[in-house]
């Protein structure tokens, strides 16, 4: 199946094409309007979308199968639920899902919903912490699936999103619809190493943060190949999002984030920080818009992107944007791209640290600010390990880099 030919169809033909019932009509009419993206689509301007939408894909069938229910991990393999986990307060089911974001800017978001007859719906009704693991093993196919997370009112959860497996030549089209209900909070931590000559992921998501709710989104992407994370956030009254993104991209990877954060409710707050480390011929993408609607008085919106280029062939497309329809707010944004600081590098060298090691130290330090936003120490250490694995090729366990508990025990520092 070629995706770009869908652009010839109107919404009812789209529904027919995917055997979808009327619950998908929002997706169908939105897609008929904003279309499957091509190289002229603005939101895809820094990414190579053409090969993905023009290729004749074999669809990877999502089989309904016996689902295990054990452990603290929800496992999804090639889009099919494999293990729903056994997590107190968390229910997982396959269900038709129609509450999609009609205002989304991304055609693939709607296409993905249209193609997925059912979504994996995860409901958190008690405070909880668990992992969602995505495994990909099918080569040369289009793997499409949707995951929904509902965090009930006044519930506080942490989700760690992880990835495994090899699916050479495949296109992963997926994403989350996350609803953080009133007074609830969700810490969502995504860690993804994408090796070269594997699959191409496009995750296209929507996050709805209800009044007084809080979403902390941390993404750690270590990319040797192409991929895109697309998301749209709606913030209701006094809702807050803290988004931090760390990207390390190398080889010929084109990788990054295209996002929109929309302040709908008054006194909502957003902060979005991206740090990108680009090596070889990689292109990093941070194409991020924060829109403050006229209904959103007294909001705060801060956005910042910092990039380090380690090679003259690397490039950062950093486009933080603020679109503001009121005056009564506090907002800022900024973007810097540069090399490693010469003075800092020299200081380390002048103490006998070889230049390459000094560079590694500074890179790790640059990443540190983002990794340190993960307050779960176990998870933070795992992310360090995964980053170092991607960046150095090896990982050397040295607790002094990240934590100071051994120092505390040796030194007896307890103030």
């Amino acid at each position, binding site marked *: 199946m070629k995706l770009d030919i869908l652009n010839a169809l109107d919404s009812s033909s789209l529904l027919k094409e995917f055997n979808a019932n009327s619950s998908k009509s929002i997706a169908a009419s939105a897609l008929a309007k904003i279309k499957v993206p091509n190289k002229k689509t603005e939101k895809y301007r820094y990414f190579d979308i053409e090969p993905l939408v023009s290729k004749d894909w074999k669809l990877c069938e999502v089989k309904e199968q016996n689902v295990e229910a054990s452990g603290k991990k929800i496992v999804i393999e090639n889009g099919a639920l494999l293990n729903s986990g056994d997590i107190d307060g968390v229910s997982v089911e396959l269900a038709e899902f129609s509450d999609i974001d009609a205002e989304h800017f991304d055609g693939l978001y709607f296409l993905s919903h249209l193609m997925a007859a059912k979504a994996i719906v995860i409901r958190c009704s008690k405070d909880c912490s668990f992992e969602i693991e995505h495994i990909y093993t099918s080569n040369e196919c289009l793997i499409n699936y949707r995951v929904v997370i509902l965090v009930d009112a006044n519930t506080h959860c942490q989700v760690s999103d992880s990835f495994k497996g090899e699916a050479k030549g495949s296109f992963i089209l997926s994403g989350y619809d996350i609803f953080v209900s009133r007074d609830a909070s969700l810490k969502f931590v995504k860690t993804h190493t994408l090796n070269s000559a594997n699959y191409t992921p496009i995750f296209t998501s929507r996050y709805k943060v209800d009044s007084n709710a809080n979403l902390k989104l941390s993404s750690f992407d270590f990319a040797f190949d192409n991929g895109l994370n697309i998301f749209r956030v709606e913030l209701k009254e006094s809702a807050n999002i803290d988004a931090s993104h760390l990207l390390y991209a190398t080889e010929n990877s084109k990788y990054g984030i295209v996002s929109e954060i929309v302040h709908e409710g008054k006194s909502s707050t957003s902060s979005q920080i991206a740090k990108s480390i680009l090596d070889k011929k990689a292109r990093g993408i941070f194409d991020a818009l924060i829109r403050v609607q006229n209904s959103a008085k007294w909001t705060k919106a801060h956005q910042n992107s910092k990039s380090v280029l380690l090679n003259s062939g690397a490039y950062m497309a950093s486009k933080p944007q603020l679109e503001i329809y009121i005056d009564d707010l506090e907002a800022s944004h900024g973007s810097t791209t540069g090399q490693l600081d010469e003075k800092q590098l020299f200081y380390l060298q002048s*103490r006998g640290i070889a230049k390459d090691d000094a560079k590694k130290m500074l890179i790790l330090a640059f990443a540190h600010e983002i990794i340190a936003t993960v307050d779960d120490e176990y998870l933070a250490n795992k992310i360090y390990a995964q980053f170092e694995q991607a960046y150095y090729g090896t990982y050397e366990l040295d607790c002094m880099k990240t934590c100071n508990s051994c120092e505390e025990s040796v030194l007896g520092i307890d103030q």
Partner: protein
Amino acid sequence: MSKVLEIKDLKAKIGDKDILKGLNLDLEEGKVHAIMGPNGAGKSTLSKAIVGHYDVNVTDGEIIYKGKNIVDEEPEERALDGIFLSFQNPVEIPGVNNAYFLRTAVNARRKHLGLPELNAAEFLREMKALVTELGMKPELINRSLNEGFSGGEKKRNEILQMMMLEPDVIILDEIDSGLDIDALRAVSEGINKMKDGKRSFLVITHYSRILDYIKPDYIHVLKNGQIVHTGGSELVEQLEKEGYSSFEEK
């Protein structure tokens, strides 16, 4: 008396500006040399030239250290061989843990000397003892390197590094600037403790006070990119009285 460091007719530029203009200076083993001179004379430039700072372009002359010309050596090679500079303005490095940085440096030097590396516990025990000696706040070693340190804390941190790295030639660029009385005493005691009859010191300063503590063997006057006068500690008094104008450029 054997010379550890011989600077011969050194000429150096920063950008396209000539800063060092044929500077000659020998450091003797086990001795304390002080350099005094007006602002902008080239004192920091000289210290940067010795450690191989990228700002300084040596155009002529030699820096002979332990018998070989090091002008083309990388900064880390000079450091591993035992040259240490305490910077006038140490740089802040957010995200690099102070203790982790120093252990990496210490172990690089130990490895270079053929000594076994220190594990975290051994290292921290040693470091902790020095931190106490220098009157540093213990929490500073868990912070990011120099980030948000006060001026005096940065200087003490330089001295901590010096004591841990046990270099052979120690260059202190205005280590005394911005130190309170207690810090000056602690830092001077740290420096004096490092004197072992072999190690040499090059102390750049504007004030006689630190020299009261660390008792220089020689005073050199650096003016307009050259050493214009060398004498004993009696020179300090003369300089305090008359300033630099009585010392003519060559």
